[in-house]
């Protein structure tokens, strides 16, 4: 799982039928201090998160597809949690 921040929304009318009704959000990976790194990717939202929130993203197909239960959706990235707090031992 990857820590990320939701930075935007994506609207797509023409998409795979298994993705209908799915909320697509732009997520940017962050480190434990909240600093952005890497590139922004697209994830399907399963927990009702919104722009600005810190979230947990799974980037593996099996786990991401689980949010659609039995539907065989072509999804490789999904938001599966909203982060309340991160505690770590800093340097």
């Amino acid at each position, binding site marked *: 799982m990857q820590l990320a921040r939701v930075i935007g929304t*994506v609207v797509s009318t023409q998409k*795979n039928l298994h993705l209908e009704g799915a909320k697509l959000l732009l997520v940017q990976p962050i480190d434990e201090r909240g600093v952005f790194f890497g590139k*922004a990717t697209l994830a399907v939202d399963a927990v009702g998160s919104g722009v600005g929130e810190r979230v947990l993203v799974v980037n593996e197909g099996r786990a991401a*597809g689980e949010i659609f239960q039995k539907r065989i959706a072509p999804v*490789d990235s999904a938001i599966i949690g909203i982060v309340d707090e991160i505690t770590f031992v800093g340097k």
Partner: protein
Amino acid sequence: MQLAKVLGSVVTTQKDPSLASLTLLVLQPLDSDRKAVGRQLVAVDSVGAGVGEEVFFVLGKEASFPFLPKRVATDSCVVGIIDHWSVSKIGKSTR
């Protein structure tokens, strides 16, 4: 999934039979500010995307799901055409 722009298409005559009649597109992955990032790649199309359009694509085994029960030999597939996207100030300010 990642954002990308369709740069062109690829024509191949001799290929795996599972890829017959499928469109192959050349994609340039994009960042949230429309800047090209990373290397270009070839992906199968499942939504009727055309050159110049902004799309999103999946990588890995899931790329073959849109064609089930047919098994297609691909690891990247365009699964949606993007109408528009917006990035909040949070996303822009820390860049």
